Protein backbone atom coordinates (compact mmCIF):
# COMPACT_ATOMS: atom_id res chain seq x y z
CA UNK A 1 0.00 0.00 0.00
CA UNK A 2 1.26 3.45 -0.90
CA UNK A 3 1.63 5.68 2.16
CA UNK A 4 -1.33 8.03 2.39
CA UNK A 5 -3.01 6.52 -0.67
CA UNK A 6 -6.24 4.53 -0.98
CA UNK A 7 -6.01 0.74 -0.54
CA UNK A 8 -4.55 -1.01 -3.56
CA UNK A 9 -2.89 2.14 -4.89
CA UNK A 10 0.48 0.41 -5.01
CA UNK A 11 -0.83 -2.34 -7.28
CA UNK A 12 -2.39 0.16 -9.67
CA UNK A 13 0.75 2.29 -9.74
CA UNK A 14 2.84 -0.82 -10.41
CA UNK A 15 0.51 -1.74 -13.29
CA UNK A 16 0.87 1.78 -14.70
CA UNK A 17 4.66 1.56 -14.37
CA UNK A 18 4.66 -1.78 -16.19
CA UNK A 19 2.74 -0.14 -19.06
CA UNK A 20 5.43 2.55 -19.27
CA UNK A 21 8.22 -0.05 -19.17
CA UNK A 22 6.45 -1.94 -21.98
CA UNK A 23 6.99 1.07 -24.25
CA UNK A 24 10.64 0.01 -24.41
CA UNK A 25 9.90 -3.57 -25.45
CA UNK A 26 9.56 -4.81 -29.03
CA UNK A 27 5.95 -4.46 -30.21
CA UNK A 28 6.28 -4.04 -33.99
CA UNK A 29 4.89 -6.80 -36.23
CA UNK A 30 7.76 -7.35 -38.63
CA UNK A 31 10.45 -4.86 -37.72
CA UNK A 32 10.22 -5.42 -33.95
CA UNK A 33 9.87 -1.67 -33.44
CA UNK A 34 9.92 -0.51 -29.81
CA UNK A 35 6.59 0.12 -28.13
CA UNK A 36 6.91 3.89 -28.22
CA UNK A 37 7.04 3.70 -32.04
CA UNK A 38 4.62 0.80 -32.57
CA UNK A 39 0.83 0.95 -32.72
CA UNK A 40 0.68 -0.44 -29.18
CA UNK A 41 1.55 3.02 -27.81
CA UNK A 42 -2.04 4.10 -28.52
CA UNK A 43 -3.12 1.66 -25.79
CA UNK A 44 -0.13 1.59 -23.45
CA UNK A 45 0.08 5.33 -22.77
CA UNK A 46 -3.66 5.91 -22.07
CA UNK A 47 -3.74 2.72 -19.96
CA UNK A 48 -0.81 3.93 -17.87
CA UNK A 49 -2.50 7.30 -17.33
CA UNK A 50 -5.86 5.71 -16.49
CA UNK A 51 -4.35 3.30 -13.96
CA UNK A 52 -2.21 6.01 -12.35
CA UNK A 53 -5.21 8.32 -12.00
CA UNK A 54 -7.33 5.48 -10.61
CA UNK A 55 -4.65 4.85 -7.99
CA UNK A 56 -5.27 8.29 -6.50
CA UNK A 57 -8.87 9.18 -7.41
CA UNK A 58 -11.51 6.58 -6.61
CA UNK A 59 -14.66 7.61 -8.45
CA UNK A 60 -17.05 5.56 -10.54
CA UNK A 61 -15.63 7.28 -13.62
CA UNK A 62 -12.01 6.42 -12.88
CA UNK A 63 -13.04 2.83 -12.15
CA UNK A 64 -14.85 2.54 -15.48
CA UNK A 65 -11.85 4.03 -17.30
CA UNK A 66 -9.47 1.68 -15.50
CA UNK A 67 -11.64 -1.30 -16.47
CA UNK A 68 -11.51 -0.25 -20.12
CA UNK A 69 -7.73 0.08 -19.79
CA UNK A 70 -7.44 -3.44 -18.33
CA UNK A 71 -9.60 -4.91 -21.09
CA UNK A 72 -7.48 -3.11 -23.68
CA UNK A 73 -4.32 -4.51 -22.08
CA UNK A 74 -5.72 -8.04 -22.36
CA UNK A 75 -6.50 -7.42 -26.04
CA UNK A 76 -2.97 -6.09 -26.46
CA UNK A 77 -1.57 -9.26 -24.92
CA UNK A 78 -3.48 -11.32 -27.51
CA UNK A 79 -2.04 -9.07 -30.23
CA UNK A 80 1.46 -9.61 -28.86
CA UNK A 81 0.97 -13.40 -28.83
CA UNK A 82 -0.22 -13.28 -32.43
CA UNK A 83 2.98 -11.44 -33.32
CA UNK A 84 5.14 -13.94 -31.42
CA UNK A 85 6.36 -11.34 -28.91
CA UNK A 86 6.43 -13.15 -25.55
CA UNK A 87 8.00 -10.34 -23.52
CA UNK A 88 5.42 -7.83 -24.70
CA UNK A 89 2.58 -10.29 -24.04
CA UNK A 90 3.89 -11.03 -20.56
CA UNK A 91 4.19 -7.36 -19.66
CA UNK A 92 0.67 -6.55 -20.86
CA UNK A 93 -0.76 -9.57 -19.04
CA UNK A 94 1.26 -8.70 -15.94
CA UNK A 95 -0.10 -5.16 -15.88
CA UNK A 96 -3.65 -6.50 -16.30
CA UNK A 97 -3.10 -9.07 -13.55
CA UNK A 98 -1.78 -6.42 -11.18
CA UNK A 99 -4.72 -4.07 -11.66
CA UNK A 100 -7.64 -6.48 -12.02
CA UNK A 101 -8.09 -7.62 -8.37
CA UNK A 102 -8.58 -4.02 -7.22
CA UNK A 103 -10.47 -2.58 -10.19
CA UNK A 104 -12.48 -5.60 -11.31
CA UNK A 105 -12.68 -8.17 -8.47
CA UNK A 106 -15.51 -10.09 -10.18
CA UNK A 107 -13.40 -10.69 -13.29
CA UNK A 108 -10.40 -11.65 -11.14
CA UNK A 109 -12.53 -14.20 -9.25
CA UNK A 110 -13.85 -15.67 -12.51
CA UNK A 111 -10.34 -15.88 -13.96
CA UNK A 112 -9.09 -17.51 -10.78
CA UNK A 113 -11.88 -20.11 -10.82
CA UNK A 114 -11.21 -20.88 -14.48
CA UNK A 115 -7.51 -21.26 -13.77
CA UNK A 116 -8.12 -23.59 -10.83
CA UNK A 117 -10.55 -25.61 -12.95
CA UNK A 118 -7.98 -25.98 -15.72
CA UNK A 119 -5.35 -27.11 -13.24
CA UNK A 120 -7.61 -29.69 -11.60
CA UNK A 121 -8.48 -31.32 -14.91
Amino acid sequence: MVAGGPPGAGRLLAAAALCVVSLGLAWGAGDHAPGYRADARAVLVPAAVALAVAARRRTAGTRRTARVALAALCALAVLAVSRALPAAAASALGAAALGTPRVWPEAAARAGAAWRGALSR
Partner: protein
Amino acid sequence: MTDDHSDLPPPGVPPGPPPPPTPTGQISGTTWLGFAAVVALAVAVSLEEDGDNGWGRIGVWAAFAIAAALATLAPAVREPLRLTPARAAQVAVAGGIGLAAFWVLFVLPVIERNVSFLATLGCVAGCWAAWRAPGRPGAAGPAPGRRPGPGGQAPPAW
Protein backbone atom coordinates in the same frame (compact mmCIF):
# COMPACT_ATOMS: atom_id res chain seq x y z
CA MET B 1 -9.94 12.50 -16.76
CA THR B 2 -13.37 11.12 -16.63
CA ASP B 3 -15.67 12.26 -13.90
CA ASP B 4 -19.26 11.25 -13.87
CA HIS B 5 -22.31 11.92 -11.77
CA SER B 6 -20.69 10.46 -8.64
CA ASP B 7 -19.03 13.88 -8.20
CA LEU B 8 -22.36 15.68 -8.13
CA PRO B 9 -23.67 16.65 -4.71
CA PRO B 10 -26.39 14.41 -3.35
CA PRO B 11 -29.87 15.91 -3.15
CA GLY B 12 -30.47 18.03 -0.10
CA VAL B 13 -26.80 18.81 0.52
CA PRO B 14 -26.10 22.55 0.32
CA PRO B 15 -23.40 23.48 -2.21
CA GLY B 16 -20.00 24.41 -0.81
CA PRO B 17 -18.38 27.82 -1.15
CA PRO B 18 -17.46 28.85 -4.71
CA PRO B 19 -13.77 28.92 -5.67
CA PRO B 20 -12.09 32.26 -4.94
CA PRO B 21 -12.20 34.55 -7.98
CA THR B 22 -9.01 35.77 -9.61
CA PRO B 23 -8.44 39.46 -8.82
CA THR B 24 -9.29 41.71 -11.76
CA GLY B 25 -6.32 42.43 -14.02
CA GLN B 26 -4.27 39.53 -12.69
CA ILE B 27 -3.51 36.62 -15.02
CA SER B 28 -3.99 33.24 -13.35
CA GLY B 29 -1.42 30.45 -13.37
CA THR B 30 -3.76 28.34 -15.49
CA THR B 31 -3.78 31.03 -18.18
CA TRP B 32 0.00 31.19 -18.14
CA LEU B 33 0.15 27.41 -18.59
CA GLY B 34 -2.20 27.53 -21.57
CA PHE B 35 -0.22 30.41 -23.06
CA ALA B 36 3.04 28.48 -22.57
CA ALA B 37 1.47 25.47 -24.32
CA VAL B 38 0.51 27.57 -27.36
CA VAL B 39 3.97 29.16 -27.63
CA ALA B 40 5.88 25.91 -27.08
CA LEU B 41 3.85 23.98 -29.63
CA ALA B 42 3.97 26.78 -32.21
CA VAL B 43 7.76 26.93 -31.89
CA ALA B 44 8.10 23.11 -31.85
CA VAL B 45 6.22 22.62 -35.11
CA SER B 46 7.95 25.58 -36.80
CA LEU B 47 11.59 24.83 -35.92
CA GLU B 48 13.49 22.94 -38.60
CA GLU B 49 15.29 19.73 -37.65
CA ASP B 50 16.77 17.11 -40.01
CA GLY B 51 15.86 19.33 -42.98
CA ASP B 52 12.15 19.63 -42.26
CA ASN B 53 9.75 21.02 -39.70
CA GLY B 54 6.41 20.03 -38.25
CA TRP B 55 4.39 21.85 -40.90
CA GLY B 56 6.12 19.80 -43.60
CA ARG B 57 5.98 16.50 -41.74
CA ILE B 58 2.50 16.43 -40.25
CA GLY B 59 0.81 19.44 -41.84
CA VAL B 60 -2.71 19.90 -40.58
CA TRP B 61 -1.98 17.95 -37.40
CA ALA B 62 0.43 20.71 -36.38
CA ALA B 63 -2.42 23.19 -36.69
CA PHE B 64 -4.62 20.79 -34.72
CA ALA B 65 -2.07 20.78 -31.87
CA ILE B 66 -1.98 24.57 -31.75
CA ALA B 67 -5.78 24.74 -31.86
CA ALA B 68 -5.98 22.24 -28.98
CA ALA B 69 -3.53 24.35 -26.98
CA LEU B 70 -5.63 27.43 -27.71
CA ALA B 71 -8.69 25.56 -26.42
CA THR B 72 -7.03 25.20 -23.02
CA LEU B 73 -7.20 29.01 -22.80
CA ALA B 74 -11.01 28.93 -22.98
CA PRO B 75 -11.57 29.65 -19.25
CA ALA B 76 -9.48 32.83 -19.60
CA VAL B 77 -11.54 34.17 -22.52
CA ARG B 78 -14.93 32.82 -21.55
CA GLU B 79 -16.51 36.23 -20.96
CA PRO B 80 -15.84 37.65 -24.47
CA LEU B 81 -16.91 34.32 -25.94
CA ARG B 82 -20.02 34.21 -23.68
CA LEU B 83 -19.23 30.75 -22.33
CA THR B 84 -20.46 29.49 -18.99
CA PRO B 85 -17.69 28.38 -16.57
CA ALA B 86 -18.70 24.74 -17.02
CA ARG B 87 -18.67 25.01 -20.82
CA ALA B 88 -15.29 26.78 -20.79
CA ALA B 89 -13.91 23.99 -18.60
CA GLN B 90 -15.29 21.40 -21.05
CA VAL B 91 -13.59 23.16 -23.95
CA ALA B 92 -10.31 23.25 -21.99
CA VAL B 93 -10.57 19.54 -21.16
CA ALA B 94 -11.27 18.76 -24.83
CA GLY B 95 -8.13 20.70 -25.71
CA GLY B 96 -6.16 18.74 -23.14
CA ILE B 97 -7.40 15.44 -24.56
CA GLY B 98 -6.47 16.62 -28.05
CA LEU B 99 -2.97 17.50 -26.89
CA ALA B 100 -2.57 14.10 -25.23
CA ALA B 101 -3.66 12.35 -28.44
CA PHE B 102 -1.28 14.52 -30.49
CA TRP B 103 1.60 13.61 -28.17
CA VAL B 104 0.89 9.86 -28.31
CA LEU B 105 0.37 9.75 -32.08
CA PHE B 106 2.98 12.21 -33.41
CA VAL B 107 5.50 13.22 -30.73
CA LEU B 108 6.18 9.93 -28.95
CA PRO B 109 7.43 8.03 -32.05
CA VAL B 110 10.11 10.70 -32.63
CA ILE B 111 10.78 11.46 -28.97
CA GLU B 112 14.57 11.52 -29.55
CA ARG B 113 14.32 14.77 -31.55
CA ASN B 114 15.01 18.12 -29.91
CA VAL B 115 11.74 19.61 -31.11
CA SER B 116 9.92 16.68 -29.52
CA PHE B 117 11.20 17.81 -26.13
CA LEU B 118 9.70 21.23 -26.70
CA ALA B 119 6.45 19.71 -27.96
CA THR B 120 6.33 17.48 -24.88
CA LEU B 121 6.72 20.51 -22.61
CA GLY B 122 3.89 22.22 -24.51
CA CYS B 123 1.60 19.21 -24.21
CA VAL B 124 2.32 18.88 -20.48
CA ALA B 125 1.59 22.57 -19.94
CA GLY B 126 -1.65 22.35 -21.91
CA CYS B 127 -2.85 19.22 -20.11
CA TRP B 128 -1.97 20.78 -16.76
CA ALA B 129 -3.92 23.91 -17.69
CA ALA B 130 -6.92 21.76 -18.63
CA TRP B 131 -6.60 19.80 -15.36
CA ARG B 132 -6.61 23.06 -13.35
CA ALA B 133 -9.31 24.74 -15.42
CA PRO B 134 -11.72 26.66 -13.16
CA GLY B 135 -15.19 25.18 -13.33
CA ARG B 136 -13.99 21.62 -13.86
CA PRO B 137 -15.27 19.27 -11.13
CA GLY B 138 -12.50 18.70 -8.61
CA ALA B 139 -10.23 21.36 -10.12
CA ALA B 140 -9.78 23.30 -6.86
CA GLY B 141 -10.41 21.35 -3.68
CA PRO B 142 -13.31 18.95 -3.20
CA ALA B 143 -16.38 19.17 -5.40
CA PRO B 144 -19.16 21.37 -4.03
CA GLY B 145 -21.34 19.46 -1.62
CA ARG B 146 -19.01 16.48 -1.26
CA ARG B 147 -18.93 15.40 2.38
CA PRO B 148 -15.39 14.82 3.63
CA GLY B 149 -14.63 11.56 5.38
CA PRO B 150 -12.50 11.04 8.47
CA GLY B 151 -9.30 13.05 8.27
CA GLY B 152 -10.86 15.68 6.01
CA GLN B 153 -10.66 13.63 2.77
CA ALA B 154 -13.53 12.18 0.75
CA PRO B 155 -13.79 8.40 1.25
CA PRO B 156 -12.87 6.25 -1.78
CA ALA B 157 -15.85 5.18 -3.87
CA TRP B 158 -14.35 1.69 -4.48
